[in-house]
């Protein structure tokens, strides 16, 4: 979908795999039409700003997940890394180490957990599912240990400005998420690393036969995922105004769901960055719209689940 094909565009529209690639975009458009008819508030500038702000953290997390899934793996630890990063930030801040150092430590912690994930998966030859399930538990445990189970309030002007400030009509969060997405897109399609990542995920043996160090590629993908989860931890702390050791399971499920909605093959080697970003927007819009329509909060996970499974069904047409 990123490469220009020679076939005329109308021919592509009849190709079911085209629709599978663009599941998220099509669904997002339908959802926006539906919600804007049902609720006059949905398409107002204020609501769109709130929606994008709410989506930013998920977008950052989703991009890391996308890189891992493109290698044919999965990172179940992203939400726990986010929590751990947030707690590390809180602890460092409450010890008076300064907000810059605290944020940096949160990101470094996420990166380190990602590195460990990658090393154990690539060098230890253990299934990604098991390794990241383990680090899911270990990272949330570490967050509890570090914080002694107690949240830390953070009223820092820098974090406050990060969460509420905006450039024109666009919030800093949104700008940050957009920058991450643009860089991730360029790295994936315009760098050697990106091509090698797709090759590793698509056919590890072939990539290795061509001399690509597939272990290094996989480890790097988990490092990126961990680093972005750490950044997402900083964003969440800024948004909530506190570092809480509480688990954020919905972030994990939504990040995987957004990747699936975004047309990325769970077998690896095929996908985009834009797709999962749109997937994350779709999931956030779904929750936002249902809230506007005063649908009980309890229905939201149900709706997300149905949308994801429907998307996965559509993906079967992907070639």
């Amino acid at each position, binding site marked *: 979908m990123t*490469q220009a094909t*020679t076939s005329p565009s109308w021919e592509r529209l009849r190709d079911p795999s085209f629709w599978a690639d663009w599941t998220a975009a099509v669904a997002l458009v339908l959802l926006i039409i539906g919600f804007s008819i049902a609720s006059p508030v949905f398409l107002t500038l204020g609501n769109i700003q709130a929606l994008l702000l709410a989506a930013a953290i998920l977008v950052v997390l989703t991009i890391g997940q996308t890189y891992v899934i493109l290698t044919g793996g999965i990172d179940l630890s992203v939400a726990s890394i986010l929590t751990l990063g947030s707690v590390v930030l809180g602890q460092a801040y409450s010890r008076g180490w300064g907000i810059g150092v605290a944020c940096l430590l949160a990101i470094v912690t996420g990166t380190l957990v990602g590195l460990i994930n990658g090393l154990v998966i690539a060098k230890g030859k253990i299934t990604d599912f098991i390794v990241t399930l383990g680090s899911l538990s270990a990272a949330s445990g570490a967050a509890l240990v570090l914080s002694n189970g107690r949240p830390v309030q953070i009223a820092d002007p820098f974090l406050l400005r990060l969460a509420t400030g905006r450039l024109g009509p666009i919030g800093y969060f949104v700008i940050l998420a957009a920058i991450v997405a643009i860089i991730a897109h360029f790295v994936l399609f315009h760098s*050697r690393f990106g*091509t090698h990542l*797709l*090759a590793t995920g698509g056919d590890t*043996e072939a*990539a290795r036969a061509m001399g690509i160090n597939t272990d290094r590629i996989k480890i790097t993908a988990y490092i990126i995922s961990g680093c972005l989860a750490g950044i997402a931890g900083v964003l969440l702390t800024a948004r909530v105004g506190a570092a809480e050791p509480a688990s954020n399971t919905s972030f994990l499920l939504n990040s995987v769901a957004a990747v699936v909605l975004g047309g990325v093959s769970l077998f690896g080697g095929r996908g985009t960055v834009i797709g999962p970003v749109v997937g994350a927007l779709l999931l956030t819009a779904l929750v936002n719209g249902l809230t506007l329509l005063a649908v009980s909060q309890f229905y939201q996970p149900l709706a997300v689940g149905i949308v994801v499974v429907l998307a996965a069904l559509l993906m079967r047409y992907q070639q």
Partner: protein
Amino acid sequence: MSFNEPIHRSENHRAENEAGNGSSHPDSIPPPFTDDDFLPSEAVRSIPAQPDRANVLLYIDQVSKWFGNVHAITDITIWANRGEITAIVGDNGAGKSTLIKCISGVHGPTAGQVFLDGKPVHFTSPEDARRAGIETVYQTLALCNDLTIWQNLFLNREMVNHWGPLSFLDQRAMRRRSAEMLSRLEVNIPSINARVRRLSGGQRQAVAISRAAGWGSRLVIMDEPTAALGVRETARVEELILRLRDDGLAVLLISHNFDQVMRLSNQIWVMRSGRLVGGRRTQDTSGKELVSMITGAQQEEAL
């Protein structure tokens, strides 16, 4: 050291062969090697030609590869000439794959020496071999289905533009060069932007061969290039192999298809149970003889 020792030995060999040619019965050719441990005598008898210094590109001198106690190949001495197709035939488990892995840098030989262009070479990885101009077309082709043709042709050899410390893929240049690589070998493929997944088996083989031939390589090793192809596609791929030969490359062909080996090759080496059974110039042998050499039935037949 280099070539001197083996070639010297081969010259003796030639003299003895010529002496034997006077006789109508091939069994009367005396074995050129006195060392009985080196090769079984029936095998030695059938080594036909000597490496010709001017044309030989690859010379494998008494290469052995052992995995612990398993002797995968023992004392293999073969060579391949520029501008020729050299076939290696043998039954499953004869050691063909191990031999080509010793040449392509996957394995280091336990004993013996590989010479390329008269110089001893030691490869520690396939990249080493590739840098020296040895390319392998694997049976699996090593193509990534979800990447485009040009991405596969340039996989791990991407062309980049530098922007200070950053580098970006030069997609335009890679597309252009890909089209050149394919057209040089007269490979017809609808679009270099097509994903490999959409190609037929023959087209994939053509892409893999073009990639192997397109990097200034001097030796292309092909492992069963037409095993999975239909009749018409096989013919296309065979044309492609002949074109590589005409371009002056040395081609090392592993094939089970005797018909193909007889049609394409200039030189044939026969392996059995990890040893070299013999070698023939293709015009001097027949499919029937090859079968008997491969199965070891030759002696009985000769009687």
